[in-house]
């Protein structure tokens, strides 16, 4: 049924994992989590690590400005035509979960203008702990929290912390200053998430985003195989 769309025009919805020519479309990974936890910084670091080996693009969902997109542009992590900002009408979670149409337009436009792409990162506008991405928009999601937001967040759980394909506990370098107990955060996260992976990282440290980049590469290998 998906073999030939040519009689029907472009696909109506794009959860479809294949392009019209039968090849697999870009893997889409969503990054969600509270404001300031380090989503944009993680996206920027991932772009720097992966851009030489993969064809990449980014969609940002800012709440009321284009700051995330502009940060990525200023940092020159990707050429400008590979970064698109989606406006979300004061409701960032709506745009990634309940009405994903603007984000789907953005990823499809990127595929069309700079594709073929291997990977598209979709950053959500910072939101609360219940915000998750629709499966119609992304193939996997990363939830980013930080040690400064309170070390009880993993224990409190919520859909992001509990169900995301990867949980990042960011800014571990700040733990001593804010009195966060990293071992406790790791143990609580493990209890909430069972077998789902958790990565504690500091983007200020030497290894930076390396572990997360390795996870992304694994997902990509699974996607294309």
């Amino acid at each position, binding site marked *: 049924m998906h073999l030939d769309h040519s009689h029907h025009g472009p696909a109506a919805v794009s959860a479809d994992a294949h392009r019209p020519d039968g090849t697999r479309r870009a893997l889409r990974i969503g990054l969600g989590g509270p404001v300031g936890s380090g989503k944009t910084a993680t996206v920027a670091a991932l772009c720097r690590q992966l851009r030489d080996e993969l064809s990449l693009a980014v969609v940002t969902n800012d709440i009321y400005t*284009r700051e995330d997109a502009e940060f990525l542009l200023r940092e020159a992590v990707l050429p400008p035509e590979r970064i698109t900002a989606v406006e979300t*009408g004061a*409701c960032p979670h709506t*745009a990634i979960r309940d009405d994903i*149409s603007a984000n*789907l*337009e953005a990823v499809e436009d990127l595929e069309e203008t700079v594709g073929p792409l291997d990977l598209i990162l979709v950053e959500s506008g910072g939101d609360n702990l219940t915000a998750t991405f629709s499966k119609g928009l992304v193939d996997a999601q990363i939830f980013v929290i930080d040690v400064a937001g309170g070390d009880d967040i993993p224990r409190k759980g919520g859909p992001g912390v509990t169900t995301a394909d990867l949980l990042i506990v960011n800014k571990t370098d700040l733990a001593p200053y804010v009195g966060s107990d990293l071992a406790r955060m790791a143990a609580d996260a493990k209890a909430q998430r069972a077998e789902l992976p958790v990565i504690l990282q500091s983007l200020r440290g030497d290894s930076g985003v390396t572990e997360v980049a390795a996870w992304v590469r694994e997902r990509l290998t699974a996607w294309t195989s």
Partner: protein
Amino acid sequence: MTHAALLVLADGRFPAGGHAHSGGAEAAVKAGRISCAADLEDFCRGRLHTAGLVAGALAAAAALGLDPRELDAAADARTPSPALRLAARRLGRQLLRAARASWPCPELDGIARSFPKGAHQPVVLGLAARAAGLGPAEAAYCALYESVSGPATATVRLLSLDPFDATGVLARLAPELDAVARTAVDAAGRAAAEGLQALPAASGPLLEIMAEAHASWPARLFAS
């Protein structure tokens, strides 16, 4: 003919991108023209009789089966602001995606092929209504209701306006909306018989001017 499909199409949660647009309310709030429920009512009434009427007639005409290309050109001619044209085409493309998923049919597939960058939203709305088994009156109602419910919802977010007051505004406008819907459907019927010049060309100049300014703001909550 089904009536229940109208509820699906007119539902504010129908995933067609409307939630990110304020129908000019964000610009009007910033300019101080909307600061309470009474202002919102005036704003919505103005929109209903101008942009709303035009959208309603276009949607009804598309639901009647008039040529979508010509209707899209007629919508362009009635939308001076380039920013509003762009927003209408984006929303049209988003609506087409949701409509094709909801009521798949060759006619909507054809529209996707002919308008890769999207057709004006009211035209797509009429075609979606047609695909859903609805008639021109339902299409007009849908377009007219969206023309006022969008600003009302946005104002609740922008001003923290009491949501009961905002809903009261919509309820009070309902009889007027009935009357405008009749005008829109009549115009669409005449357009079918006499040509598209019979479609209304009412315009709210301030909506168009403010839309241009709004599109250039560096920080805003809504896309239009």
